[in-house]
């Protein structure tokens, strides 16, 4: 069971991505809480790609500007989300963790999306292959 979509690196595409994750969750009979978690890690990584990878707005059209997304149910009750983009290399797992203990006046928002991904996903994998960033997030069902 696999659902995939090709997305332009634009913020408004988040609506289509969210609809796909919601529809997948319903088809798979996932709880509303798990669906919200999958949407959250999907949004965080997608927005990260377009804000930092492609530095919107995107100048050129073409297949290299598309972001490939797929969501899959895996054996042993886990959901896998996979993004492939053509932006410059960016490994979120090497990024310094956000400091979540600072008071409001010292708080920035940088790194928070990655922090949420790492808090929610049970496993993340990054690879740079053929000029693309591959990022996979695995979320177990029932945890």
């Amino acid at each position: 069971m696999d659902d995939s979509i090709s997305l332009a690196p634009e913020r408004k595409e988040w609506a289509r991505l969210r609809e796909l994750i919601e529809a997948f969750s319903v088809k798979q009979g996932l709880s509303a809480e798990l669906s919200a978690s999958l949407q959250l890690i999907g949004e965080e990584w997608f927005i990260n790609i377009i804000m930092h990878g492609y530095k919107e707005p995107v100048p050129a059209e073409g297949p290299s500007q598309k972001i490939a997304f797929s969501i899959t149910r895996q054996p042993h009750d886990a959901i896998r989300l996979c993004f492939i983009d053509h932006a410059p290399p960016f490994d979120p797992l090497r990024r310094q963790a956000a400091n979540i203990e600072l008071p409001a006046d010292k708080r920035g928002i940088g790194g928070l999306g990655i922090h949420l991904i790492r808090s929610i996903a049970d496993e993340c994998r990054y690879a740079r292959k053929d000029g693309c960033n591959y990022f996979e997030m695995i979320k177990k069902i029932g945890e």
Partner: protein
Amino acid sequence: MTMQARQLGETTIIALSGRLDGMTMSEVEEQFLALIEQGRSRFVFDMSGLEYISSAGLRVMLLAVKKTRAAGGKLALFAVTGNVDEVFQMSGFSTIFAIFATEEEALSYIAAS
């Protein structure tokens, strides 16, 4: 996403409902900044109708608390539940904000000098 503001004495009660994410953050930000420009500085956010928040939404909430403090005001939240509560906990935002269970408790925090 809907954001409805009503005035109770000097306090503005803002009810957020739906999703506060990368698509809707800018409308909430604009409406909140308009209230600050009108001179409002005491805010209670009713989060009971909010179903989803992401880091884009947290960015707006952080802006709100910073602007409120810069204006010498106070801000409180109430009824933070479900996914929204989980994200507040994971991001450490639950320690940045004054969060209460009910509107009455939030209002009495705002009223206290």
